[in-house]
């Protein structure tokens, strides 16, 4: 077999595994969200399908799969079909550059492979930001193509909100990039090795704690989750941009929302909380099994963020639209800009 063939097979296997894990996590999340919300509100959550409702995601998936696929009268059919794909693909494609475990290479048939990252490109974080912005098009086009006023209003709100908060996400990340000196997620994570005081939330020249808070709040807004779920505000807009969607197309939007949640959690874990690095220097397990520990810490950090999403949803009511805009432009943006200023001065005074 040629070199290209082997590399292609390896990459395809990697992509299949990552995609499988992401979709499995989405399934777990749909159940976990309902369960955690229920427990926080003194309820039980789903209890009927399987013991303690653990088979609920499968039942939901089957139900969505067999639902009728309705295209409303007067809808733009092409854009109506395109929008869910435009929402889902950018959400899934971002996982290509996420490092899930330690940056080590294995040798297979005489060639070098990185098993824990699909492709370690040197503009990783920029790539993710670019593609998550395309995801907003899916929402806007879906809202417009539905030929429904609620969908259109949801799409418009989404456009304004995602643009405002993308900016804050980008600016919050800049501080970390200044300290790490790289856009590659693998290099950024490697720079944080050796104990939690090296993580960029607490790192020496200037702790990125403000950038971290800005990033977390903005990423909640960017994924259209409560308390920033104005594009799909149930009490105001029926269901926002996917009011007219049903069946598998609705399932695509649903998948995209949860995949986006996982993606922003992965970025937060990799950029601010040290990715696969343990909070203590080195690893406890022997060298050959160190990757197990790395993957475990990465998973723990990602799931902490996902829990935070549910926790915020259970606690906070929805913001009003003007409050959302004021908070984004007048509070988050100056903090992010000030953080960049202070971080660059600190990075200049204490060069690595």
């Amino acid at each position: 077999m040629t070199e290209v063939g082997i590399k292609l097979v390896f990459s395809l296997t990697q992509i299949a595994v990552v995609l499988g894990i992401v979709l499995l996590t989405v399934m777990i999340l749909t159940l976990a969200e309902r369960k955690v919300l229920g427990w926080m509100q003194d309820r039980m959550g789903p209890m009927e399908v399987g013991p303690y409702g653990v088979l609920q995601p499968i039942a939901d998936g089957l139900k969505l799969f067999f639902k009728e696929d309705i295209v409303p009268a007067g809808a733009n059919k092409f854009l109506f079909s395109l929008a869910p794909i435009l929402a889902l693909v950018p959400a899934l494609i971002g996982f290509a550059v996420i490092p899930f475990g330690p940056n080590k290479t294995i040798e297979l048939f005489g060639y070098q492979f990185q098993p824990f990252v699909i492709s370690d490109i040197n503009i990783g974080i920029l790539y993710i930001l670019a593609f998550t912005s395309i995801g907003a098009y899916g929402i806007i086009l879906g809202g417009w193509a539905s030929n429904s006023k609620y969908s259109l209003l949801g799409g418009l709100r989404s456009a304004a909100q995602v643009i405002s908060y993308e900016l804050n996400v980008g600016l919050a990340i800049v501080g970390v990039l200044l300290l790490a000196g790289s856009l590659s997620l693998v290099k950024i994570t490697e720079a944080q090795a050796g104990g939690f005081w090296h993580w960029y939330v607490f790192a020496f020249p200037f702790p990125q704690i403000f950038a971290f808070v800005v990033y977390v709040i903005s990423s909640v807004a960017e994924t259209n989750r409560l308390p920033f779920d104005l594009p799909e505000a149930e009490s105001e807009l029926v269901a926002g941009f996917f009011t007219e969607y049903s069946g598998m197309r609705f399932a695509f939007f649903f998948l995209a929302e949860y995949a986006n949640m996982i993606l922003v959690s992965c970025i937060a874990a990799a950029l601010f909380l040290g990715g696969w690095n343990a909070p203590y220097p080195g690893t406890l397990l022997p060298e050959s099994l160190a990757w197990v520990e790395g993957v475990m810490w990465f998973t723990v950090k990602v799931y902490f963020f996902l829990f935070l999403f549910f926790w915020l949803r259970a606690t906070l009511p929805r913001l009003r639209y003007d409050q959302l805009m004021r908070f984004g432009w007048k509070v988050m943006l100056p903090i992010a800009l000030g953080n960049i200023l202070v971080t660059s001065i600190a990075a200049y005074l204490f060069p690595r």
Partner: protein
Amino acid sequence: MTKFTAWIKTIIFYEILVGMKATLSHLLHYKPITLQYPHEKRTLPDSYRGMLALLRYDDGTEKCVGCDLCEAACPSRVIKVFSAEVPGEPTKRYAKEYYMDMTRCLFCGLCVDACPVDALGMTREFEWAVYDKRQLRLNKEQLLAIGDRSYPVREKRLEFQHPNVAFFNVAFKGLPEKES
């Protein structure tokens, strides 16, 4: 100083943190108030106003005397009574036919209050969802059957409850002998 603490509280999202602590404490001290309804059921109070039923005396005769007062009291015209003489007893009446259209009933209990002989009762049955709403127009036999299964302890006839009161219904057969 108070201004400074207020400022600090704004900076660290104090109110939001308090709220998140509240939800987390509910998660950690998880005590659901949910009752898994079809599997476990609430104990209903005795005064529960559920399905209506016609009752009988302990000798198996119907209590209803066909006076139509329930029909008059009913605010949503649920009840329809066709009164008739008891065959062979010209002064005594009974409900020859008795219909209740339970699709309209609002379970106010006015018919139970209006009944002079306590022939109507409210049971604790409430699971009366059916596929055909015509099944909810109940006749006398069905209402009596509900009463039979919900009120196993029946009253004695009025004249046996108080043997010393005067009987106005002189045509009643088989009166107990008065102790002279």
